[in-house]
């Protein structure tokens, strides 16, 4: 072979290499801003929450993004569970990342950004349940779960059926005016009871301090009013104080119902052992992180094994996975709709509104989700899962319990 031919072959080979390599080099990168509380009151659970977000992004980049020609970058910011901190961070985040989506943690992030995001046209994805006061049309902040009131109502209906209660379930609510969110949570359950007097009756909503000194008197009162369930969706301190009051009064047959952020595991740690919470429940519209084999648990184990994700199987990690997967699926839908190189925050929001997100797409972390312009969460067709402590073990009590429709309050 002479030199001339060799040069032609080498040139052709080089062109082939460049051509083959071009999809990778043409990969478009979009960013997600990941707000967490590394120095705030929930800093202890953020490792799992952030680890789950990162695990989900790594999985998506490898198994979905590569095929689309998209790479999603994620960067963490410390919101300190402080609206002022999040508000002050946001202009810098926008300038630095130009994010197509934000992952938020709680009320402070919502309070800080809900007025800005419609103008900035960047959607934020939450992982907690939604709030009645944020139940407004044309949302830019999305929750994958209904309101806490909806989740509580799902439990009331399930519990009523389980116990074979013919009349309304008598519920006492322990709340606090320390946070508007806590008051809103109580209002949601009250609204359900008001509109469905044959299904639930709120015997009393007890407002306490966030760390009550003693609840024996209040619990004694609601017991006399016939409470069959005590709904506590505020914090673990209230759960512990209520349980101690029930124990002091010798009433261990009245179940406490908790949420995800103050659930059985967290409250069990705060009270000093799971045995104290035998027969109590937690309810929320996402996967329950028990040891049982579920599709969601398999996904967590897969991202740990394959993508070296630093994440255990906990309520916090389910929350991190759920919001990251919703955001990633919305980016994916936007890319298919507007084109790989034309994805922006507005396109991500439109894509989320346009299509149903199936439970399979979130690996069972969430039920099927259909967002509309009416609310920041899917108002119909949702389900919730319920966990309990049985023989000292954290187990699933019920899955895919229908979430009742509640009128806006």
């Amino acid at each position, binding site marked *: 072979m002479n030199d001339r031919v060799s040069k032609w072959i080498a040139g052709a080979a080089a062109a082939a290499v460049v051509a083959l390599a071009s999809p990778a080099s043409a990969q478009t990168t979009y960013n997600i801003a990941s707000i967490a509380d590394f120095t705030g009151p929930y*800093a202890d659970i953020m490792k799992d929450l952030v680890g789950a977000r990162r695990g989900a992004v790594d999985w998506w980049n490898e198994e979905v993004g590569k095929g689309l020609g998209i790479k999603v970058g994620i960067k963490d910011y410390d919101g300190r569970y402080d609206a002022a901190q999040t508000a002050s961070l946001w202009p810098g985040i926008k300038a630095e990342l130009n994010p197509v989506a934000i992952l938020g943690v709680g009320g402070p992030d919502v309070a800080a950004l809900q007025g800005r995001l419609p103008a900035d046209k960047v959607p934020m994805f939450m992982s907690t349940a939604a709030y009645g006061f944020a139940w407004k049309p044309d949302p830019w902040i999305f929750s994958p779960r209904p309101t806490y009131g909806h989740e509580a109502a799902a439990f009331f209906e399930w519990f009523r059926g389980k116990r074979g209660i013919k009349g309304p379930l008598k519920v006492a609510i322990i709340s606090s005016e320390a946070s508007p969110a806590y008051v809103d949570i109580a209002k949601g359950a009250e609204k359900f009871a008001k509109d469905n007097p044959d299904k639930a009756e709120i015997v009393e909503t007890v407002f*306490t301090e966030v*760390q009550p000194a*003693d609840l024996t008197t*209040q619990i004694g*009162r609601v017991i006399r009013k016939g409470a069959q369930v005590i709904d506590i969706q505020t914090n673990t301190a209230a759960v512990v*104080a209520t349980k101690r009051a029930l124990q002091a*009064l010798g009433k261990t047959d009245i179940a406490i119902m908790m949420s995800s952020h103050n659930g059985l595991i967290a409250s069990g740690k*705060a009270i000093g052992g799971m045995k104290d919470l035998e027969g109590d429940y937690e309810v929320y519209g996402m996967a329950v992180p028990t040891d049982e084999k579920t599709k969601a648990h398999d996904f967590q184990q897969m991202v740990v094994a394959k993508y070296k994700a630093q994440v255990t199987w906990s309520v916090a990690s389910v929350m991190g996975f759920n919001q990251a997967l919703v955001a990633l699926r919305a980016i994916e839908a936007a890319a298919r709709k507007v084109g790989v190189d034309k994805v922006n925050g507005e396109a991500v929001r439109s894509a989320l509104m346009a299509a149903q997100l199936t439970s399979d797409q979130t690996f069972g972390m969430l039920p099927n989700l259909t967002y509309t312009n009416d609310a920041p969460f899917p108002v119909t067709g949702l389900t919730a899962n319920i966990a309990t402590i049985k023989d000292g073990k954290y187990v699933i009590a019920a899955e895919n319990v229908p979430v009742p429709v509640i009128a806006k309050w």
Partner: protein
Amino acid sequence: MFDPIDFLNYLINGALVGLLYALIAMGFIVIYRASKVFNFAQGELVVFGGFVVWWMVIQTGLPLVVALPLAMVMSALFGLAIERIFFSRLVGESGFAMVMVTIGLLILIRGLILVLFGPQVRPFPIIFPLKPVIIGDILIPRSLLIGAMITVVVGLGLSWFFNNTRAGLKMTAVAEDHQVALSMGISVKRSIAFAWALGAVLSTLGAIIYLSGKSLNFLASDIGLSALPVALLAGFESIAGVLLAGLIVGAVQGLVTAYVDPVIGGAVGSVFPFVIMLVILFIRPTGMFGWRTIERV
């Protein structure tokens, strides 16, 4: 329908919670008497004391009889350290400067607790039996009852100390005026150091009663705020007066919580002590038993 038994239950429980506030308020008063400093970080001292008890009992597994006195000693040392690092340098400075330092201290202690113990909610050991005392239809939480007894004994003891012992009278002189006390040969620094140590110990005692069998994280510092109306009602110089003020604030709060909250659907009971506080500030800024200062021009 009005039930006299319910009324008594609410009244007694409220009064007992009020005496718990009084114990925390004593920490405010002891420090104020010696240094004329209103300590905004009193609630954080309660949380610090609580975490020390938790660490000794739950983490190191020490028996209560050893852990509780040790926790008191550690709290006293913490109080001394605060005085040595911050307030010994501020003798003779304006009250405003010292108050600003206590606000800084609040932020510092909160951060220190997060660094040392983490933000997790911890189980606080059961110091007092959970079973309530039941007298007929009256039900009294045992921890609050024992706590109330401790508060009365401590309050009367401290009152006697401040009014009848040489060391107590010296501290009273310091409370009157640092310069005058210095000119009389009284060690202002030592008095203030003792007050901080005592304030920290009282906070730890308060944490033990308040948190027995419950959970602990930095939110427990809110009790410092709840104790403020009690200290104001009593007047910032009266230790014995704080017992009466605690009973009044607690009983009123208990009754409002029981009878007004269910009607209005809100935490009027939590707000009411602060309404009392504002009324006191308008009518009698020195409180019921506070010293009335007469200034000669």
